[in-house]
């Protein structure tokens, strides 16, 4: 008995954080800094800052396959290879799909990285605030449920998150994309400056273009080095120049001496105590030994990525919660969303042949949403933004088909045309029927059931894509571009790696899983602050919002804990 008591004491913390990605790292930092002893559980391997970025300083010729994948890698990663992110330089950070299968009722490209830091190591780093337009859209057009918060509730937490993470960008005074606490912006190149000026003149500032707001440091910040313009971020940055768990939140949490980080810890379910009506802790499978164990805490933060967290909640069944933890509303697993993109236009810029670029800017341009604002009513709801940029290629486009020889070599090594591209990122509406659920007919490597995903874009998204393509061409035309080409390469949910929804916040416990503090309506010591909490997704890249919501929820949770309300 003594042994058991000791073990229980040893495995008991003030708080458990499930997941170590962007939101999990923030939860660990905030909770430890507020005095809690925290256990952060990560299902994959450890990745130590700098030391475990073996490819970070490699030159192109130091990669055996020059960045390309082998047939063997393709065989074990049939989902990860559907798009570009899984590459030779960072292959160890993408899951082996055979070990972690899932069921696709409809095609859904699920990109996953199981390791300390999660996708904070490979993320796109674009960081935009949501605006009141975004928080009000659900209530206004009746899709999804109303957000329980407004911009004023989160604004100070955006300030807080930006100040710590280090977001570079320019102030634009654009209501749909509020300004923040920015480090100096990166530069637009000469073609982008011209396009910006001509778009803003042509549309009389009803559309604007800016440099991307990005979690790359333009000046040293909190002991981290500034961006070296190598554009190799997804290998891990030895300068700590972009925000990741490793560069930013983990060192802060570790500095408190109150964080315990346990890699290879797969949370199978949250343990519910029917007497206290609270979560008691979590059951963990050790990913290496397959042994199960339990950990206990006063509060549990669920930050296992949108679908990872939702799986854990759906898998946490008990007599009181037969359909998953905190799922009396029946909304858990529903309203899955992702941005739709891969359509836009590109064109050639003339008159800049005497200029070139120096350095590889890990950032592009941004055109914030301008559609369906004010009195405008398109034949679809909500809107989209653009990312893109201008760059200078070689003369390869002028060479004959399958050309070779000295002249070909010369053209391949001579700066050629400037081109400018705009690619749309569109908001997807929340649809109840876009859902995930547990499929017990399949098992993963550790014997757990798997997630089934049933999600598709609908008419609103399809109609929006026509504008996304045509508006891009029109803006390039207005900017004086030549040879403008439009494209729609097709898109499946999951491809933007911005999957959100499935455990939404809301005012009413009957129609939502979490309250305005990301706290579960039914189980008040469980908080979910990753992408699963989102009632709508706007068209902006979402990670900054996860950071702000997490910091805000941690602040509330600790206050409630101190008041003994939890």
């Amino acid at each position: 008995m003594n042994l058991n008591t000791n073990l229980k004491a040893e495995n008991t913390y003030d708080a458990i954080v499930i997941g170590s990605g962007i939101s999990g790292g923030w939860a660990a930092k905030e909770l430890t800094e507020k005095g809690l002893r925290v256990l952060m559980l990560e299902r994959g391997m450890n990745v130590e800052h700098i030391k475990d970025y073996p490819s970070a300083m490699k030159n192109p010729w130091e990669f055996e396959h020059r960045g390309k994948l082998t047939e063997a890698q393709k065989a074990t990663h049939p989902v990860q290879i559907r798009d570009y992110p899984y590459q030779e330089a960072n292959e160890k950070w993408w899951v082996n799909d055979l070990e972690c299968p899932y069921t696709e009722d409809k095609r859904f490209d699920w990109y996953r990285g199981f390791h300390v830091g999660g996708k904070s190591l490979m993320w796109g780093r674009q960081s935009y605030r949501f605006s009141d337009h975004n928080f009000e859209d659900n209530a206004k057009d009746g899709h999804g449920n109303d957000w329980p918060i407004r911009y004023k509730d989160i604004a100070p937490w955006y300030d807080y998150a930006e100040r710590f993470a280090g977001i570079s960008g320019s102030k634009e005074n654009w209501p749909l994309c509020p300004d923040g606490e920015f480090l100096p912006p990166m530069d637009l190149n000469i073609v982008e400056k011209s396009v910006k000026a001509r778009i803003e003149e042509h549309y009389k500032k009803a559309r604007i273009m800016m440099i991307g707001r990005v979690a790359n440091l333009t000046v040293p910040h909190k002991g981290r080095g500034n961006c070296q313009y190598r554009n190799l971020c997804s290998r891990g940055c030895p300068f700590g120049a972009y925000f990741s768990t490793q560069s930013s939140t983990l060192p802060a949490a570790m500095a408190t001496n109150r964080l315990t980080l346990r890699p290879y810890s797969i949370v199978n379910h949250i343990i519910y105590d029917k007497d206290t009506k609270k979560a008691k802790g979590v059951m963990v499978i050790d990913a290496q030994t397959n042994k199960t164990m339990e950990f206990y805490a006063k509060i549990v933060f669920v930050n296992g990525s949108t679908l990872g967290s939702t799986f854990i909640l759906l898998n946490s069944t008990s007599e009181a919660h037969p359909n998953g933890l905190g799922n009396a509303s029946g909304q858990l697993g529903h309203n899955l969303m992702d941005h739709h993109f891969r359509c836009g236009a590109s064109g050639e810029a003339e008159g800049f042949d005497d200029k070139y670029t120096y350095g590889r800017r890990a950032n592009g341009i941004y055109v914030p949403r301008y559609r369906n604002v004010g009195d405008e009513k398109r034949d679809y709801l909500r809107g989209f933004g653009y990312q893109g940029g201008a760059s200078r290629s070689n003369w390869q486009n002028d060479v004959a088909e399958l050309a070779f020889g000295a002249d070909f070599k010369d053209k391949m090594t001579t700066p050629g045309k400037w081109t400018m591209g705009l690619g749309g990122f569109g908001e997807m509406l929340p649809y109840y029927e876009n859902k995930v659920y547990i499929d017990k007919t399949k098992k993963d490597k550790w014997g757990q059931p798997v997630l089934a995903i049933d999600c598709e874009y609908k008419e609103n998204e399809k109609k929006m894509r026509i504008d996304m393509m045509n508006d891009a061409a029109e803006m390039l035309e207005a900017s004086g571009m030549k040879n403008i080409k439009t494209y729609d390469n097709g898109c499946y949910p999951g491809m933007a790696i911005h999957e959100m929804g499935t455990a939404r916040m809301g005012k009413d416990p009957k129609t939502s899983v979490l309250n305005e503090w990301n706290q579960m309506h039914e189980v008040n010591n469980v908080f979910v602050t990753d992408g699963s909490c989102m009632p709508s997704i706007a068209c902006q890249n979402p990670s900054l919002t996860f950071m702000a919501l997490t910091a805000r929820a941690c602040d509330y949770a600790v206050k409630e804990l101190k008041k003994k309300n939890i």
Partner: protein
Amino acid sequence: MHRREALKNVAFLLGGAISATTMGVLFESFTLPENEKNYVSFTADQEKVLAEFAEIIIPTTKSAPGAKAAGVGKFIPMMVKDCYPAKMQQAFAEGLKEMEAKSLKDFNKEFLLLTVAERTKLVGEIRDETIIKKKADKAAKKNEGYFFVIARDLTILGYFSSEIGCTQARSYVAIPGRYDGAAPLKPGQKSWAT
């Protein structure tokens, strides 16, 4: 910039120069059963043949050494074995043999013994035949992989990612440290390697 720009940059720098087939193989989903890996093998002589072939595609010029010096002769067969599906490996291996046979037939000499002028003529003819075959296959919606296309693609990829390709044929700065979006283009300036 979105993550996707990273791939676009790779695609962009090699650009129209690389075939859609190779872009597909290298970036998209081709898988093959376990037992079909390393379907073909290549002899040391064939590596020499491929090195000379690659040197015709990207020859040594005043500005920089060519594909042979950059080690592309070994790179091509390694990539074909590791990174291409069985069918394409086979098409490649057959095409290589056909090129060697054509050399004997047209010049009564082995490929390695041809003069540069002879090799250039031979490679040009194979290129022309490949263009015709591709057109016919496209009409019939076939894409079986072509020796010339794969060998040329891998020459371009291998060369422009090699140390010679990056630092001599193009310019390479490992750590730029800053960004200038309006740098004056100097006369004779080479394009950036990455």
